[in-house]
């Protein structure tokens, strides 16, 4: 079958029609992950557990965020052998993380055929001013955001999916809730605003006018909006969905708990049935202990991963 409409080489968002098609394909994969759960995994065995539980994708990374937080040091893109092992093991999409601004880690993952790249604040940033120009790649990217301005800046750079930053590895949902309410509340305000106020709003939030206009007209982001950071229990997933997240990422919450297979399945169940409290209740039974959580007050500003990104 002809694939030449997809462009050649790595420059998938080229000029004109071909560029539009490339973006359509990237957002298309993000659409397919809606109503699903994406799980952090550190080896093939965990990837299999995630797939068996009903996860719609896995995120391959060297250490889950809570271990990165504990161990300190520089956190980088995962070893390629580990990612390849996971690609061979599962049939669901495989995502992997690169450091903010690390264009060449992203090229390596693109060359490997990774399905989605997370330009992530969980890893140590490679550039403290600039993010990757994501429109320049064929592979789709997801980026974290704490507020609407940050989300729209990432979309302008070519991100095909936005997730809240939350506070990764904390087991504490409070930051994800704050970021979801912030993004969705700002969108509501922009939708209700008279059109002549949009330019000043765009200026104040540091976002492109065209994207602010899109939000004004459509009341939503032009790409899927997922939740991440601190989800540890089935009701945590249901809470994010009820606040407007279209799917959830679960990081340390699964494999730092007492019974990862049972918890993975339970989070998937609660995420699918988030509108039905009886089903969320069923998902809460027989799970063992959840991961340890961290109070936000005990985290100094410079220990908060969500503050990375600009």
């Amino acid at each position: 079958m002809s694939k030449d409409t997809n462009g050649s080489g790595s420059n998938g968002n080229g000029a004109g029609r071909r560029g539009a098609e490339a973006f359509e394909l990237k957002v298309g994969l993000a659409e397919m992950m809606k109503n699903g759960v994406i799980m952090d995994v550190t080896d093939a065995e965990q990837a299999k557990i995630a797939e068996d539980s009903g996860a719609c994708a896995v995120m391959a990374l060297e250490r889950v965020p809570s271990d990165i937080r504990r161990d300190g040091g520089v956190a980088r893109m995962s070893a390629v052998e580990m990612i390849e092992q996971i690609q061979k093991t599962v049939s669901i999409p495989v995502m992997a993380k690169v450091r903010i601004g690390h264009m060449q880690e992203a090229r390596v993952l693109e060359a490997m055929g990774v399905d989605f790249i997370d330009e992530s604040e969980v890893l140590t940033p490679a550039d403290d001013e600039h993010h990757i120009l994501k429109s320049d790649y064929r592979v789709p990217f997801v980026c974290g955001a704490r507020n609407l301005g940050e989300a729209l800046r990432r979309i302008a750079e070519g991100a095909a999916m936005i997730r809240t930053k939350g506070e990764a590895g904390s087991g504490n949902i409070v930051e994800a809730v704050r970021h979801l309410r912030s993004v969705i509340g700002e969108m509501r305000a922009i939708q209700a605003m008279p059109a002549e106020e949009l330019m000043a709003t765009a200026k104040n939030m540091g976002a492109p006018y065209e994207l602010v206009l899109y939000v004004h007209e459509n009341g939503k982001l032009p790409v899927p909006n997922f939740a991440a950071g601190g989800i540890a229990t089935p009701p945590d997933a249901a809470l994010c969905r009820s606040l407007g997240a279209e799917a959830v990422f679960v990081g340390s919450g699964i494999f730092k708990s007492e019974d990862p297979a049972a918890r993975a399945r339970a989070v998937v169940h609660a995420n699918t049935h988030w509108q039905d409290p009886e089903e969320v209740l069923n998902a809460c039974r027989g799970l063992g202990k959840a991961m340890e959580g961290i109070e936000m007050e005990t985290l100094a500003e410079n220990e908060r991963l969500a503050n990375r990104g600009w």
Partner: protein
Amino acid sequence: MTESSVLLHDFPAPDSPIVGVLGIQGDIEKHLAALERLSVRGRRVLAPKDLEGLHGLILPGGESTTVSKGLVRFDLVKPIAEFAEAGGALLGTCAGAIMLSRAARNHPVPTLGLIDFETERNAYGTQRDSFVAPTDRESKPGWADMECIFIRAPRILSPGTDVEVLARVDGEPVLVRQDRRFACTFHPELTDDLRVHQALIESFSR
């Protein structure tokens, strides 16, 4: 009076047909939006009782592994087969097409076996091999020049004698029909071309 005519214009009529969208995982909302544009009522299906009163059921795109597991866990396998047996119309797109097929090759998953063809999962590769292409002139009348979005798409293999190939891309089948049951390997819900959804609705309206 004015208010009700606005409502009738904007929303499907209260007595219009209802089409369900399997609500386990995937781009459920995109299909519900397509149905609304065709003035048909949509309903998310997550339990056997949700099938009551439906004229048709759409199995959306998503992850076939996730959807396949959900069908078993939520006891939907037999009820959907009975719904189809009783004359309910079906449309499966991408992962949904895999679910309707007789069997899935390449990372097998349990399927419903409601249309007589097999599927090869991730037949074109990973996301970097996803593509957009138009249906070709070998397609049946009315089905050519339709822009199709293929995302980690499956391939349709060995369609049975009762299966009609409606549309092809580069000679390969991408949309098939067996009576009131349709399957396509692309994503009509992601474009403005509503021909596939229209065909589903016409199949039970006649």
